[in-house]
């Protein structure tokens, strides 16, 4: 078996993985990326709407800053997030946007003067400041107090991925394409790299590195209908599970996006609603104001998805051969706006539905979209159990999204998380030696070789395609938007049965090189473990928080469940994982748990909440009214960042004040 050595190994060539690789290469470390596909085809490319960063260039973003972005993110997470991480993130997001502009992203820019926008289904004229002309623009998204989502038309993911991949190419970072990592090499304490299989030749290779970063995206494809690319199968999470040591966090936290087209589940961006589109039922009636009078269509994604489902359950959905759906109406935005700012949406409507969204309503329904759970990491991106194993982006539970992610925060997390964690990965590479234990490498190589041999030569009878379809249906039917005890129990039982059957897979195609059936068989066993982990986590969590909504436990229960689910799989032959919980420390929170702003406030309070609230008030009172927001923040919850990212973010309102002051002096 060929062995390739490097300092930094990154598995996954989407935005998060590439950004980590760039940080490592810029520090002079030998860096190598593995990818199933060419980097520019990664699922990051599909992000349409944009990335949140509190630049505050537009009139509707005036007054925005890191504090408000932080608060929106924590509330959006239903207090399930790591507040340190949310702080690190909110602070660095403006830096990431500006860096991306320097790397070539043609961000949509502010035009000075009057322009017409649609707010709450009505035309409104807003006036952009003269001094903001040419600065980076932002649009409205759900669950945010300010217009904060920076974008390039509705191809933000495309622009970002192309700029970041171009940067990686300019630095000469090699991407080994069509290579699939299938196991992590580790000794129980330290990760040493991966064993990967070439999807063209079938060759097994060992990649040995000081650090290994998993950036393989989410696990949406364990569901039958998902907005995710077909490669988002959770293999990264499975790699961590298979170590038996590393933990996954909050795997039950799975987000459904309100507006994917029916039946194929392709996404139409939240920008449709952010820009003024509305939802309508079978009678053409705009129903969201009845449920959420304040935020309407721009409530958090989990809330809108549930309200849509509730409304369809009342018989208000449009009947179709694929079940009921609702309408997304963007006709009021007009042709010019749709042709320039929502052109991907328009193309999707034309190609897959044969309709023109300028004139016709779009058939939509909530569809699996985002994995908040993933490989549990510390704030520096490293696994708490396996040193040298890092994870970033949707693959990780770095945990800035908690139980519900805000639109525009995932694209932001990829590059912001990548830049921050990239620094820590580079630090690790500088401070640690390459450890090579040839016995260990051979042992893991042999293990995978045996697995392949058994699949090719064995007498198994189970069809990998059928097992996968069965798993996807169970997840969709029983581990979806609304969950309950009996259905989740059914899901766990049926999934573990499938996992058991996956030990008896048999292949019709016996090729050892490019063999799609073998690829499927290797993946389905791993995906089933991920699916069982999600279902077990959902069954155990007897409360409703963010996207995890239990009909039999409708309250957010901070008293018993203000914690993070941790799952590991220590016994490879077992059909179930081991679960434990990691408490969130209310006494360290900058923003103690409170009302999120939707529906009835039915949360069961944590015993520390009131205590911490009083403490926060006391700290602020002691600082006095003169203290600036930075001092207040530092007093409430100090957080760490790599030194280069510590400076404050300048905003154009700061320069205005300065110019005024300067001219005043003259």
């Amino acid at each position: 078996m060929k062995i390739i050595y490097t300092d930094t190994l990154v598995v996954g060539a989407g935005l998060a993985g590439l950004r980590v690789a760039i940080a490592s290469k810029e520090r002079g470390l030998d860096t190598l990326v593995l990818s199933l596909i060419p980097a520019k085809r990664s699922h990051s490319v599909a992000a349409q709407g944009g990335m949140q960063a509190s630049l505050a260039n537009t009139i509707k973003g005036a007054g925005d800053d890191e504090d408000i972005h932080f608060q929106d993110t924590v509330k959006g997470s239903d207090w399930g997030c790591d507040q340190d991480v949310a702080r690190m993130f909110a602070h660095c997001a403006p830096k990431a946007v500006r860096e991306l502009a320097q790397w070539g992203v043609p961000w949509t820019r502010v035009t000075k003067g009057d322009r017409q926008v649609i707010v709450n289904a009505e035309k409104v004229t807003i006036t952009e400041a003269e001094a903001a002309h040419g600065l980076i623009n932002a649009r409205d998204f759900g669950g945010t107090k300010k217009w904060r989502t920076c974008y390039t038309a509705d191809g933000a993911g495309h622009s970002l991925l192309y700029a970041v991949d171009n940067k990686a190419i300019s630095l000469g970072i090699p991407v080994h394409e069509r290579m699939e990592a299938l196991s992590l090499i580790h000794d129980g304490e330290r990760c040493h790299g991966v064993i990967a299989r070439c999807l063209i030749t079938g060759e097994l290779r060992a990649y040995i590195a000081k650090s290994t970063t998993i950036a393989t995206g989410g696990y949406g494809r364990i569901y039958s209908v998902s907005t995710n690319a077909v490669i988002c199968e959770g293999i990264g999470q499975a790699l961590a599970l298979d170590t038996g040591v590393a933990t996954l966090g909050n795997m039950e936290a799975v987000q459904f996006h309100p507006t994917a087209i029916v039946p194929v589940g392709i996404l139409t961006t939240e920008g449709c609603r952010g820009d003024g589109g509305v939802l309508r039922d079978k009678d053409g009636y705009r129903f969201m104001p009845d449920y959420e009078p304040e935020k309407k269509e721009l409530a958090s994604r989990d809330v809108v998805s549930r309200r849509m489902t509730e409304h369809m359950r009342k018989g208000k959905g449009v009947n179709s051969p694929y079940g009921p759906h609702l309408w997304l109406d963007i006709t009021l935005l007009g042709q010019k706006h749709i042709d320039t700012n929502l052109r991907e949406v328009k193309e999707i409507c034309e190609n897959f539905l044969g309709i023109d969204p300028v004139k016709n309503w779009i058939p939509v329904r909530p569809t699996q979209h985002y994995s908040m759970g993933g490989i549990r990491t510390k704030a520096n991106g490293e696994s708490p159990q396996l040193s040298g194993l890092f994870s970033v982006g949707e693959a990780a539970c770095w945990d800035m999204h908690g139980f519900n992610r805000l639109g525009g925060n995932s694209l932001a997390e990829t590059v912001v998380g990548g830049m921050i964690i990239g620094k820590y990965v580079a630090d690790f590479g500088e401070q640690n030696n390459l450890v090579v234990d040839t016995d260990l490498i051979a042992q893991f190589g042999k293990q995978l070789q045996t697995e392949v041999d058994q699949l090719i030569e064995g007498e198994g009878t189970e069809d990998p395609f059928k097992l996968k379809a069965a798993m996807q249906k169970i997840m969709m039917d029983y581990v979806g938007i609304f969950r309950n005890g009996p259905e989740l129990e059914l899901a766990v039982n049926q999934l573990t049965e499938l996992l058991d059957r996956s030990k008896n897979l048999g292949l019709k195609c016996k090729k050892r090189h490019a063999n799609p059936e073998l690829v499927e068989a290797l993946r389905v066993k791993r995906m089933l473990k991920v699916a069982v982990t999600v279902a077990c986590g959902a069954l155990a969590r007897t409360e409703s928080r963010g996207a995890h909504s239990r009909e039999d436990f409708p309250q957010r229960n901070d008293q018993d469940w203000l914690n993070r689910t941790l799952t590991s799989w220590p016994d490879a032959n077992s059909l179930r994982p081991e679960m434990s919980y990691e408490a969130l420390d209310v006494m360290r929170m900058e923003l103690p748990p409170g009302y999120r702003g939707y529906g009835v406030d039915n949360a069961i309070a944590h015993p520390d909440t009131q205590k911490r609230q009083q403490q926060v008030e006391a700290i602020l009172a002691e600082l006095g009214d003169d203290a600036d927001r930075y001092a207040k923040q530092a007093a409430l919850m100090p957080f760490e960042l790599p030194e280069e990212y510590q400076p404050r973010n300048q905003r154009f309102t700061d320069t205005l004040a300065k110019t005024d002051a300067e001219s005043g002096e003259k």
Partner: protein
Amino acid sequence: MSQARTLTFSIFRYDPQEPGDKPKMVTYSLTEAPGMTVFIALNQLRETQDPSLQFDFVCRAGICGSCAMVINGFPTLACRTLTANYPDGHIKLMPLPGFELIGDLSVNTGKFMRELSERLALWLHPNSADNDIHSIETPMSPEEATKLYELERCVECGVCVSACATKQMRDTFVGAVGLMKIARFELDSRDTRTADDFYHVIGNQDGVFGCMTLLGCQDTCPKDLPHMKQIAYLRRKMAAV
């Protein structure tokens, strides 16, 4: 509802790694479903009839560019091609020409695009050493930003390369994809390269003067990029150098 049709797929099969294997066309039948795309059909064929069938899809939504192939003689994205587009129900699938064949309908566009990018230096060469990310960004005219995005929408699917006669005759030709990307950076006020710099890269038969203006690129581009206009624009620029 009327009875569903039976579709006939005639698919190119060849495994270059299998000793003795010869290229051939193989016919499959499949019952059409409402809204069926070539993506859905190929997956059904693989899952139920032939698990060795090789093809590439990633986003299956017309965004990533991975699934370009030749469908009834026309190179295009398979994911967003509806089977209903073919009234007689006969669909012939061939791999994209001009790229290394991996097997059946799968070709190595990624390798091609990376090499092209390295050869033409297809990344932004910023016009200042100023890399302060904490201060206000340099303004850019909103019109320029929109124009850049218009040219940047290329998904590297390879369709333009496969539809280009010059490329079929001269392997070193950079193709419409290379020229479009050069045009995108040429237009970018943040990029320091001048027309003279670009001349060294594309001012020859492998570049802008090799194009025979047959416009296969423009006719087939799934993103409707203005290849003709950009090639003409670059020619004028290069001729002036």
